[in-house]
Structure formats: structure tokens, C-alpha cells
């Protein structure tokens, strides 16, 4: 395989994988005395689908929170697009082009589906307070332009029928889809998905897999995801990081990971000595 080529390579199914987009270097995260993540390093390359797996409590979600800037690690560096990321607030990270979904859906329940997805574009809209108060002119024009983009995403995810429904009334599977739409609306460089298929039935999972692959394919969005369904992970992802007890115990292609003895131990429950 030519995966070590820093300039990128082409996968077996013809997708282009580029150079390293994000690199985590020796990340350690503690809550008080508890270590959630211990000295983990890995990278995410442009255009790839990168999975993070591991048993419950392995620190996967914490890792995603570090990437999206919600937690600040005590040690280690985060590199994005070739630059070291300084201490940043989550909303600043969002503006760099990192969008995400949440394990326990975090939509804005009081707003319609359309408004929820429009919030995803906040980082791309910039008419001032005064312009908006006056509405006619710049604000209206901007609103319409962004509405067109959002409608494309609505079409793409096949949620046209519920555009004006308040999010609070939607069933679980659709909420997950709206959340994905909101993240996509930001036109992110890197999309983080925290258990996108948790609690879904088989058909919903198939739909979601299709959307994830399409997003990656059509927009060339880099995706990092956490998922428990091994079948899904092995099918979707180009490379997999395996975590256990806050440590990295495996990293590589699905095949490599599958045959890694440490990973097998972690999943089959061989005693830790």
C-alpha cells in the first residue's frame, strides 16, 4: 500500500486521499485526577473516513471533544491544516471549518428544521446587526442566498417534507439526519460524527451509511466518526484508531486492526494484568 505517501494516494475504489489534515500529538486529558486520555497521537488525512472505536468509557467522545475544542487537553498539541492550533474557544474552532454531530442529539428544539440547518451556516454569514435590523437590502439578500444552499442540503438528505416542522416533534432517526444536515450546512473541512448510528434500526443505519459515503464522495469532506457497530466501521472507514482505557491500542486499516492482538483482547475481554 502507498498509504505512507505524504502527498496522498488513491484508494482501491478510486477515492483521492490527500495529505494530513489534522494531527493529534501526544494528547493527554485529565478531569481532576482521572485520566480520560493518555498520550494519544494519530492523524486524519484529507478526504478520508477515519473511525475511532473502543469499548464504552475508552475516551472516544472525550477525544472528539478535544478535536472540536470543547475540552482543552493538559498536554499535547493539535495541528490543523499544517498549523499548530493555539488555545481556542469551541466557536473559534467551528470557524476553522470543523463541524460535528453529537452522541445525544443536540438540536435546537424550539426552532424549525429549516432554522436549525440555517444555524449551521452562521459561521459563513456576516451581515451586521444594523443591516439585519433594517432587513431590506443586504440582510435579506444574504438570507436568500444561504437559504438556497440550505435547500440543496435538505434535498440531499431527503428531508424536504419536514422543513418547517419544529425539531422537538421529530422522531429520533430524523433528528439524527437533521443534525447531520446542520453540520453539513457549515461546509466543513472536517466533519466529526459521534455515534451517528446509535439507536437506529437496520434501514435507518443503511440510509445513514449512504449519506456518510455520499457526503465524503460529493463534497470531499473529511470525516472522523465514532461508532460501535463493527460492521459499519469496517465497511465505511479507510483507517481506524482503537482506544481502550484512554490509551491507543491500535491504528491502521480495518484489516490491520482486525488482526491486532491487543484489539482482540480488548474486545473479547482478556484480563488486564
Amino acid at each position, binding site marked *: 500500500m502507498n498509504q505512507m505517501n505524504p502527498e496522498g494516494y488513491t484508494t482501491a475504489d478510486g477515492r483521492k486521499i490527500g495529505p494530513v489534515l489534522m494531527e493529534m500529538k501526544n494528547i493527554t486529558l485529565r*478531569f481532576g485526577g482521572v485520566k480520560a486520555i493518555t498520550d494519544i497521537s494519530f492523524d486524519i488525512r484529507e478526504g478520508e473516513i477515519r473511525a475511532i472505536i473502543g469499548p464504552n468509557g475508552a475516551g472516544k467522545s472525550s477525544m472528539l*471533544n478535544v478535536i472540536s475544542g*470543547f475540552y482543552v487537553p493538559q498536554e499535547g498539541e493539535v495541528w490543523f491544516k499544517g498549523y499548530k492550533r493555539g488555545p481556542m474557544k469551541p466557536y473559534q474552532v467551528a470557524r476553522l471549518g470543523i463541524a460535528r454531530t*453529537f*452522541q*445525544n442529539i*443536540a438540536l435546537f428544539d424550539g426552532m424549525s428544521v429549516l432554522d436549525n440547518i440555517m444555524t449551521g451556516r452562521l459561521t459563513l454569514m456576516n451581515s451586521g446587526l444594523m443591516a439585519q435590523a433594517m432587513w431590506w437590502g443586504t440582510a435579506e439578500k444574504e438570507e436568500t442566498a444561504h437559504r438556497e444552499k440550505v435547500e440543496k442540503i435538505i434535498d440531499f438528505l431527503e428531508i424536504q417534507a419536514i422543513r418547517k416542522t419544529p425539531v422537538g416533534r421529530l422522531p429520533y432517526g430524523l433528528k439524527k439526519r437533521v443534525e447531520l444536515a446542520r453540520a453539513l450546512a457549515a461546509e466543513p473541512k472536517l466533519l466529526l460524527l459521534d455515534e451517528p448510528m446509535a439507536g437506529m434500526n437496520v434501514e435507518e443505519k443503511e440510509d445513514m451509511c449512504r449519506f456518510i459515503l455520499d457526503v465524503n464522495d460529493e463534497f470531499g469532506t473529511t470525516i472522523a466518526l465514532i461508532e460501535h457497530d463493527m460492521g459499519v466501521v469496517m465497511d465505511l472507514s479507510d483507517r481506524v484508531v482503537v482506544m481502550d482505557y484512554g490509551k491507543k491500542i491500535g491504528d491502521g486499516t480495518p484489516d490491520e486492526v482486525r488482526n491486532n492482538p491487543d484489539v482482540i483482547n480488548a474486545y473479547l475481554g482478556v484480563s488486564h494484568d
Partner: protein
Amino acid sequence: MPDQLLYAIEAGLNGLMAGVLYALVALGFVLIFKASGIFNYAQGVLALFAALTLVGFQNGQIPFAHLLNAIFGTDLHEFGWHLPAIVAIVLAGGVMVLLAIVIERYVLKHLVNQAPIILFMATIGMAYFLEGLGDIMWGADIKKLDVGLPQGINETIDSVTYNAFGYGFFIDNLDIVASVVAAALVISLTIFSQYSKQGRALRAVADDHQAALSVGISLRFIWVLVWSIAGFVALVAGIMWGSKSGVQFSLSLIALKALPVLMLGGFTSIPGAIVGGLIIGMGEKLFEFFVGPMIGGATENWFAYVLALLFLVFRPQGLFGEKIIERV
């Protein structure tokens, strides 16, 4: 010792005593907050209502006399008896339990799982309702409350301090009684919640409603229980405040002071309520003593709130509250 220092110590001591009373009201807040996650704005009005009811029973007032007179053109006022204090207190306690049942049945039951801020606003509505109800039941005039608690200057402290420093401290007997009662109440509540079966259930509910339900704890019973206890605490606070400055509407505003006490002490901590109350009580008296004269006085109106506000900006969970770790 210089006079100025002596006056300051006296003001501080009186502040401590006032703080005990703040703490007493705050205690009611903490109990309800722990058991149901409701920030009960009506706690102050509850104290007012309890005190009004107590006085009403004591003096043999006919409830709703004004209303009845207005509607039926009658001229009702009093039954004409005078109940002993202890009987009236028991009866008023009974009314508070009844009130707890009514509140649970007609308000809380329908607001389960609402956002805390909605519950908070509902208690503001309850406060208005109870205030109106109290006034209609017993009349809005200022009433004197006397259940036989000792009042006036404590001669012993006065003479001891006079002999020691050449200046006698003025400490009200009522304040001393209040402190003792408050201490007893705190100790018994702590014992109750730590060691009794209901207390354990109460803590379980506080931790997780659904988990508590699933092991067979009756949520409704616990809520009635805790609102009854809060009503009882309100009654005690009402007796203390009422004996001190009469039963009137401002009593419910004084009780508002318990809010900054809570912000300081943390909403979930009984010791926090006590310490917060003492800090606020002493702080506002000393601030008024030292700084008040320079800026026009009456700083007690806002000192507690501003202190709590400044404090919160630096330590959002209060003195004794648990540190909040945010998750997504």
C-alpha cells in the same frame, strides 16, 4: 477597646443573628431544590402565609371574612376565642401540610420534566397567588405575632459586656432563641435525611427522579413530604420574623434575601445555607456600619445581591456547591 470597634462588633453580632434568620428561610429553599430541582421563589411568601395563618388562628379570626362580607353583605370578623400558641402552631402546621398536598396535586404534578426555569417562573406565580390568598383569608393589615418567645435586650450579655468593656452590647433575646431553634432544626433535618428511610428516599429522588421511581419510591409522596417540611420551616421562620417585626407583606421581601444566601452557599448544601446566611447577615450589617454613612445608607437593600453576584462570577457553583463539569 476603642468605641468604634465595640460598635462594629455589636453590629457584626446582630448581623450574625439576622443571618441565622436568613439561613432559616434559605433552608426551606435548599430542601425543595434538593428533592425536586425546583427553585422555589414562593418560599418567602410561604413564610408570610404561615405567619398570617398562625396569627389568624390565635386570634380566632374568621377566614375570608372580608370576602364573605363583600359578597353576602354580612359583618363577620372573629369567632371570639383566643387559642393558646401551641394549638395555633399545630393547626398552622396542619394548614401548611394541606397546602403542600394542594401544590403537589394541582401544580407540581403537571410540571414534571419541565425546564428548571419554567418551574422557577411557576413558583413566582404561586407566590403571587399565595400572597393574594393570605391577604384575602386573613386581611392585609399589619399584625402583631406573639407566641410567648422572650423578647427585648438580653440583660446578662448587656451587663457582662458592660463590665468587661465599659459598653453593653445590645443583643435581642429573640435572636438568641432563633439561633437555638435554627441550630436544632438543622441538626434534626440532617439526622432525618441521613438516617431515616424517608430521608434516604428523598436523597434518591434528588439524585435521579427516574431511577428513584424505578425502585419503587413514590415521587408524589416525597414531594408532599418535602413541601410539608419546607412549609414547616417556613412556619418557624415566619414565627421568628413575625415576632420581630410584625406580620406584613415586607416579610416575604425579607425572605427574598435568602436568594443571595443560596447563591453564596450553593443551592444543594444545607451547611452552605447556614454559612451563607451568616456571611450575608454579618456582611450587610458591617457594610452598612462602615460604608453606609459615606454613600447615603440603606445599603442593606442591595448589598446581599451584589455580594452574591460578584461572588458567583468567580465561583459559579457557590461556596459548597459541587463543581459543574459540562458535557455534550
